[in-house]
């Protein structure tokens, strides 16, 4: 019987956030990405017996995620603003080819997050905790929504630049 010591279970727990982030690169809408993530998890669990422990889990999981992305796009194509099919395949391909490079960059995220000034860190946390209810957050903070967008943009860009700088230094 599977248990918490099941290696696939542990791999799943370890990489689930990365799988979700991968899906978000292909499905711009966060709610849709979460739906696709759910389907991906189910597909992974259904096929867990086929996983070879000698392989890397994350690329294997991304294969399922990509399939679920394609399936989602087929079903919801007319309802959504989409990236083109060719772009999806290109994004998937570049992430597959540069998996280690991207992974190494993102490993630096937590360090960069720790460097953020307290108020920026707090605003970022609030914005993500509000789960897209940025208008309500802006209202509560008594600022215009565009002002909030700009502040968040500056914070995310500074995080991104921090990651790039650290990568270059290393």
């Amino acid at each position: 019987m599977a248990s918490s010591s099941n290696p696939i279970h542990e791999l799943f727990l370890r990489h689930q956030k990365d799988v979700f982030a991968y899906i978000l690169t292909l499905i711009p809408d966060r709610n849709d990405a979460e739906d696709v993530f759910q389907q991906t998890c189910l597909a992974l669990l259904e096929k867990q017996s086929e996983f070879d422990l000698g392989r890397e889990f994350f690329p294997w999981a991304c294969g399922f995620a990509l399939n679920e992305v394609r399936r989602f796009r087929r079903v919801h194509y007319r309802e959504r603003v989409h990236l083109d099919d060719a772009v999806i395949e290109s994004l998937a391909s570049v992430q597959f080819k540069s998996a280690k490079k991207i992974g190494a960059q993102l490993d630096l995220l937590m360090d960069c997050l720790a460097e953020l000034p307290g108020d920026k860190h707090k605003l970022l946390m609030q914005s993500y905790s509000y789960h897209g209810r940025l208008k309500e957050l802006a209202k509560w903070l008594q600022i215009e929504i565009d002002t909030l967008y700009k502040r968040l943009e500056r914070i995310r860009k500074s995080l991104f630049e921090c990651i790039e700088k650290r990568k270059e230094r290393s």
Partner: protein
Amino acid sequence: MNPVEDNTAVIAEIRSLAEAVCTESITPEQCGRLNSLLLDEKAALTYAVYLRMHGLLCWRWQNQIVIIETPETPPPVQLPAGLLGGAWQGTVGFFSQTKPFSYLAATVILGVTLLVFWAIKVTHHQHFATAPSKSVPSDARPERVFVGRITGLVDVKWSDDPRFLPPMGFAYVPLGRKYKLDAGLMQITYDSGAKVILEGPCTYEVESTSGGYLALGKLTAKVEKERSEVRSQRSEVRSQRSDHYPLSTSHQPLATNSNPQSLIPNPLFAIRTPTALVTDLGTEFGVEVDEAGVTESHVFRGKVVLVALGDDGKGRGREVTLGENESARVEKPTGGGNPVIVVRPGLVKPESSAFVRRLVRPPKVLDLLDIVAGGNGMGRCRERGIDPSTGMEDPVFIGQERTAGRQFRPVVWHKLIDGVFMPDGKAGPVQLDSAGHTFAGFPATDGRVFGSIWARAAELRPDDRRAEITNNWVYAMGPGEQFTPKHRGLLGLSPNVGVTFDLEAMRRAHPGVTPSRFRAVAGLGDPDRLVASDDGLVDLWVFADGRLKFKRIGLRRLDGTVKVDVELGPGDRFLTLAVTDGGDEIVSDWFVLGDPVLELVPTTAENQEGGQTMNGP
């Protein structure tokens, strides 16, 4: 792709467009531009890293329990936040709040469940699928088809009808199975994800892969896109299906498949009764059939189509589409003739038609520490708090002095907490809650507060470095076991501070129960553990809707512990706790409430039987 003259400019543009994706403000035009730029590999790589960074931040923080309550918010699913351990506390909290992440959390829970029960279930199914029947020759035996599983039983009393064989526990549900309950609740989860809660007395037959026949009694059906935990271990026959979004994408007509042996999946979930056919259009609805066969249906969310059936079980061209919070009753005229549909808003029979919508036992207490730390009161969230000067979440204890004027600050990120304030009687009445209740009896204070409103666990690790820093007073005070006889923990409330809990929101979040008492053990922690200091001096105030229910003036450390026990009425909307500095400033006022809880009592006698009933919204 577009020519890329200036790579730096393109990368900058990619970042801006990626940012528009992050804020979900991207326009179709921007998306078009993004499509053209992303064909360049470097641009695609930049975009991928940016969006994955965004995804990781989503993951990191969206597990926080944060909600701004709106009238449209559906009632949350309640799960004990301690179920999955520390790493999942936030997820479970969020699970109870927000639709999209409920999918995510459900998946995680499902994943754990699946992994644990995988082997057993597959073996079990195969056993049923291949075992020869005793009563049918093996070469003629129809293949047994399972459509779901019993996923909940609460206080069930099965019918003593000798022809009825009760199921064995949480058994798999085969087509054609009839269930007869004299009392209690039973939940069937179909492979499609649809859930049916039967409420005894009730007779229900599983007559298709997506529906059943309710001969008598009451049920609630919930049909959503999500796939259930049993779906992924569906029988071999059903595993040949290829539809991945069976409930959300089907466009077939409303016909139902009532042939129990038919393997053609029914596109829409339907409940048949002696007089009606209620077909789901993606929703949650209740159906009740009385002994005369009269059918009533109420829609909680989404839509259903209700068709009146004649004596021959066929439609008579009379049908109605019911929307949210609409009800209909199918009656047969006393003089005979075709059935009549009576539609009205709200429940058909408000006094009796309380449909059970969730199979959850109501809690007996709500843990205020869990709530302050972001939970729903049923878990063990700790080591988080609230900034008393702003009402925002404090993810770490802030051992600093704060000042913020006297106004009431709403806590918008937590639906069970109304707000915070810093009481100071110098300038007149102080607002206690968002309803505008005020209190004019606070003494003048120095208007300062030190530290966070903080939920701390009872146990303090011997190597916890926070306890060595005096500013972290809620840790520096040591174990404080005298305040935590139940080992729940400590609510740190250094004066001058007030926090108001929303009792009405708790009633909505935990239907069927109401807060009846507030209990805690009050007292001051000991600063002498680290530095010699004066005795502290504080005043404790407890209010319900602005009415003073309890006060203790001039509480000192040497007074030891004080039991706080405040009765709350069923109509009380807010509970306010306030602590003032006793007139000697805030130095050494390390005030805590140990094991603070709200005791809950059922709102009706019926709920004492178990299960949770909810009237329509």
